[in-house]
């Protein structure tokens, strides 16, 4: 029997060695092997014979790891695993489709810009509507790609129409802060609208929601990369055109809005079709930035605790902390989506927990002081929006911290943590929608 155990251990080590079969999978395969051996022994085979038969039935390891690579492509650069001519089917070469939507978005933004006279006129109409000019094209792109039924298309279009009506019929006052809030929150609302066609209408599926989180992170990376490239291009263009006596400002004024709008769709297309490029970037980025943020947050928490908040307190502080919490949440979500859910707790999870807890401590200190201030001075639209977001993030990160602790102590699974985040996503959408729709009338459009 001991021989058998060592043989099984050896087999498992050999299976787990490949990059595509991880610990949990090897465990699953081992359980299978043991079941098979037990049955064969019960049928009268000797233990070592049973082992050989079971291993044979399991199949060749090369073939096995190839099959695993096909399914778990995220675990490794595919080309490294799939040596040999067996190309993975890349589902997408329909770049024309993306291009059409990108151009449509670019043209729409350009027309709106000319109509609003931007940038010579500071048009708050354009500012408020700009996400509404671009993101519907992204939704349309996904509706087409995922071949949504016409009923689903209508469902996706309805919130867009409602948003367009609401934000354009509300009589905002001059320099109204509710208008700025709408401009800031509407993109969030619309991004969640894009989620509907992205998820193929299956909004209840937690896996799809996680896919959408992953998509958001990867889209962001691609967009930043495109923006950087675009910045270099614009800089060089200006440098070349200036001596020729052409006003580069005019060129930039035309190119940048359209480019920025088109890039939204191009980035989405890149995520969809060149996924394997960024798939490998995500874990690296989280691995680099999570510890850095953890260190920064610990230091900040210590400084605040030691020096007190004192004079540092102004009305922007809550906004800064909202931003901080959003970034921490972004790191958590991103790390989560890039993580292999079947793996046990690791050091990255601990660092992430440290970052989350420090952010919570910091935020609680700020929030306490801020509530007192609001108690003195009353609510304004900005304070309400900032406070609401802060509370939402506080609840989310508290839940995350609690479930992380349970997960790290082995009393819960990572799946629960994932579930918490994906269940929470609609709350953000609802809050953003509230700010867009309910807050302005509540504060009389000031």
């Amino acid at each position, binding site marked *: 029997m001991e021989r058998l155990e060592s043989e099984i251990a050896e087999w498992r080590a050999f299976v787990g060695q490949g990059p595509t079969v991880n610990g949990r999978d090897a465990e699953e395969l081992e359980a*299978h092997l043991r079941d098979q051996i037990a049955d064969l022994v019960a049928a009268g085979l000797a233990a070592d014979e049973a082992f050989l038969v079971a291993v044979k039935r399991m*199949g060749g390891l090369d073939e096995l790891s190839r099959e*695993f690579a096909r399914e778990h492509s995220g675990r490794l650069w595919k080309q490294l695993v799939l040596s040999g001519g067996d190309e993975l089917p890349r589902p997408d070469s329909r770049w024309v489709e993306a291009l059409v939507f990108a151009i449509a978005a670019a043209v729409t933004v350009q027309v709106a810009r000319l109509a609003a006279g931007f940038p010579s006129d500071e048009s708050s109409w354009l500012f408020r509507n700009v996400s509404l000019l671009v993101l519907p094209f992204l939704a349309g792109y996904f509706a087409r790609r995922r071949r949504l039924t016409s009923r689903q298309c209508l469902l996706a279009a309805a919130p867009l129409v409602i948003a367009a009506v609401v934000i354009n019929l509300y009589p905002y006052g001059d320099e109204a802060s509710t208008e700025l809030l709408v401009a800031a929150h509407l993109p969030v609302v619309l991004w969640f609208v894009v989620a509907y066609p992205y998820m193929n209408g299956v909004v209840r599926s937690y*896996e799809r929601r996680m896919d959408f989180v992953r998509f958001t992170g990867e889209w962001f990376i691609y967009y930043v990369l495109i923006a950087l490239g675009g910045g270099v291009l614009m800089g060089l263009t200006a440098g070349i055109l200036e001596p020729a006596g052409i006003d580069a400002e005019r060129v930039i004024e035309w190119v940048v809005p359209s480019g920025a709008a088109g890039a939204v769709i191009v980035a989405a297309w890149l995520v969809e079709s060149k996924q394997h490029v960024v798939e490998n970037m995500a874990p690296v980025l989280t691995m680099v930035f999570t510890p850095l943020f953890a260190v920064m947050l610990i230091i900040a928490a210590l400084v605040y605790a030691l020096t007190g908040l004192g004079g540092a307190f102004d009305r922007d502080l809550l906004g800064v902390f909202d931003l901080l919490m959003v970034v921490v949440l972004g790191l958590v979500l991103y790390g989560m989506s890039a993580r292999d859910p079947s793996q046990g707790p690791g050091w990255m999870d601990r660092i992430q927990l440290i970052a989350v807890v420090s952010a919570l401590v910091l935020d609680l200190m700020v929030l306490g002081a801020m509530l007192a201030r609001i108690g003195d001075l009353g609510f304004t639209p900005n304070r309400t929006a900032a406070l609401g977001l802060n509370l939402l993030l506080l609840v989310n990160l508290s839940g995350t911290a609690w479930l992380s602790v349970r997960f790290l102590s082995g009393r819960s699974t990572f799946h629960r943590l994932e579930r918490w985040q994906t269940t929470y996503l609609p709350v953000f959408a609802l809050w953003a929608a509230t700010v867009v729709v309910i807050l302005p009338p509540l504060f009389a459009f000031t």
Partner: protein
Amino acid sequence: MHIDKDLVAALATPLVLSILTEGESYGYAILKRVRELSDGELEWTDGMLYPLLHRLRRLGYVTTEWRTSPEGRRRRYYTITNDGRAALAEQQRQWVTVARALGDVWGGDDLLPFALGRG
């Protein structure tokens, strides 16, 4: 009888999903059921089942849970979801159509639909 590799591959998803509609199960038990259902005719390398199950999980057709079985063995149990049932219904439609077409062209004795339990 040797069944063609491509045919087995096409059959795998509906077969596994159908087995899971009988109740949650784990890899080894699913394979045993496959052998039972096909009287051992379906040749299937055991290991290949797992990438398939993981794909079904990724697609949201099944959910998984690690549990310790009564005999004390840690196993990953698979449960079919509503998405999975919907996907299975779609696959069933396709298979019935295919079987009917083949049955018609092979002389109308409808052997295939009969084999599929839709005779």
